[in-house]
């Protein structure tokens, strides 16, 4: 999905992990994924650069669908659909 499509998505769950160092955002995502149903959308907010690599890999391993990244001024918004 492109950035405009992602910005239009309504996430079922938003995980705000901004200000958390590695591997905090990944752990926050792992903790929160249990709170949504299969097919629902999760948005992860992170200011940690490594998260942009970690979350797509995590999705691949856990079979969630990684939808893409929207860059904001000081953080990233990462979107995924739960398997």
């Amino acid at each position, binding site marked *: 999905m492109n950035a405009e499509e992602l910005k239009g998505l309504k996430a079922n769950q938003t995980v705000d992990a901004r200000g958390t160092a*590695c*591997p905090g955002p990944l752990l926050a995502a792992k903790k929160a994924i249990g709170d949504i149903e299969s097919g629902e959308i999760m948005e992860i907010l992170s200011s940690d650069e490594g998260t942009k690599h970690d979350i797509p890999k995590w999705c691949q391993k856990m079979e969630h669908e990684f939808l893409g990244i929207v860059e904001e001024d000081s953080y990233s918004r990462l979107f995924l659909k739960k398997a």
Partner: protein
Amino acid sequence: MSEKLVVIVTNGPDKQEMATVPFVMATAAQSMDAEVTIILQSDGVILAQKGSCDNVTAHGFMPLKQLMDTFLELKGKLLVCTPCVKSRGISESDLIQGSQLIAAGTVISETLEAKAVMSY
């Protein structure tokens, strides 16, 4: 059955980054539903001493105490080399809750069962 990872740690809290990175790897593996065992050997056993990690934060990483707590909450197994503990004058009552004293046979058994072993 989940995949199993063993992480061996031989550095104490004085080497902040080398003590922290193994717990970063371990918790990242747990986020992918791997079963993780951490084995503390040599100066690594000091990490299991109560209070030893309270002020350890390597640049760019979560605080070590927070990582260790998360590791144990996610049902990680924290094994501690008995001879290494004894030679440093650490008593069993000084070890954090959730850690378990072991000897060489357990180390070998754990590593042979694992899909991968990382050593720090």
